[in-house]
């Protein structure tokens, strides 16, 4: 019974079926009661299609977007430089710490490093660079986008394949913990550059 009502409301009955249904609606109190249950809900849903909204919110969407775009462009520059600095820090420390120069595997050098060691290395290189005094917080979206573009390069994924797969490469930071992300990042750096 419910399905016929739904198909009728959805415009899914043929003309003959519609005529039959409407006839039955007039003669069957049970069908009529059920039908009215559906139409009552539908009219509540229809009311919500036209509610009075706060126009100031919609007026603010474009300015908010432009503001975020500005921040994003600035953030990208800072993040790229931080990435290069981190790399430079690792290379510099590799040569400083390695007693036998090129014979030491970088993996061996950094495998026992803690987060503090990495931060110290980056800070060391940052201090050499006077052009970037502003610290900018980069959003999860930005971190996701850099990690995902590195991953898609590594794994030869097209951007489209990230949408409905079980693993959402564009939103890794929400699905993995920060230790795994650091490990992943180190792994990719190592593979890509060493």
């Amino acid at each position: 019974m419910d399905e016929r009502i739904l198909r009728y409301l959805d415009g899914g009955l043929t003309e003959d079926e519609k005529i039959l249904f409407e006839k039955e609606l007039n003669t069957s109190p049970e069908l009529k009661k059920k039908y009215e249950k559906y139409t009552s809900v539908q009219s509540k849903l229809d009311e919500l299609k036209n509610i009075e909204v706060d126009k100031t919110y919609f007026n603010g969407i474009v300015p908010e977007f432009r503001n975020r775009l500005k921040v994003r462009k600035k953030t990208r520059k800072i993040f790229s430089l931080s990435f290069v600095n981190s790399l430079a820090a690792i290379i510099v420390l590799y040569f400083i710490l390695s007693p036998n120069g090129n014979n030491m595997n970088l993996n061996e050098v950094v495998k026992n490093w803690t987060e503090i060691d990495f931060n110290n290395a980056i800070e060391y290189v940052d201090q050499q660079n006077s052009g970037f005094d502003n610290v900018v917080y980069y959003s999860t979206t930005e971190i996701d986008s850099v990690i995902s573009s590195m991953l898609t390069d590594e794994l030869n994924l097209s951007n489209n394949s990230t949408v409905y797969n079980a693993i959402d490469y564009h939103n890794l930071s929400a699905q993995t913990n920060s230790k795994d992300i650091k490990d992943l990042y180190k792994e990719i750096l190592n593979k890509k550059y060493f």
Partner: protein
Amino acid sequence: MSIAEEDLNLIEAFKNGDETSFNRLILKYQQKIYWLAHRMTGNHFDADEVVQEVLMVMYKKIRGFEFRSSLYTWIYKITLTRSINFINRRKVRENFSIDENSLINLKSEDSITDNIEAKEKLNKLDKVLQLLPVKQREIFVLRNFNEMSYKEISDITGKSVGGLKANYFHAYKRIVELMEEGNDG
């Protein structure tokens, strides 16, 4: 001028460096994006975040848009994808969030309308929609609120028309049950 021609002109102007054309596209589609995001995520706060994410994706990718589908189909696809991603991220955050209660309270206070009666009805609907599985919610919203044809929904979601109809009917039936329970309780 048809909607498609208007969209094409705006996109061409944007490709040629006219940033205000992109702003005009936002103004044209922002309500559709917002309401789809709101009905999927269940509250104004999260919908607002999704809207901004969708606009960012559009801004990055619209230069490569080739009009194989209509612009609004493309925009809806992006909105649904970002909404579903947001919902998944939210589940992870809620599981590990220290201050979960205050976050939930903040979200329920924020609203798109100041009208108290409308706010209550909207909150009720939001709660009911959140009780549907995401895929049923998606189809129900596109069909019932956006009044899209099954063919259009199939283009957006990639699902068969038969499957969509079945899901829509399940969703509708469930919504009616839930709204009835809400009235009794």
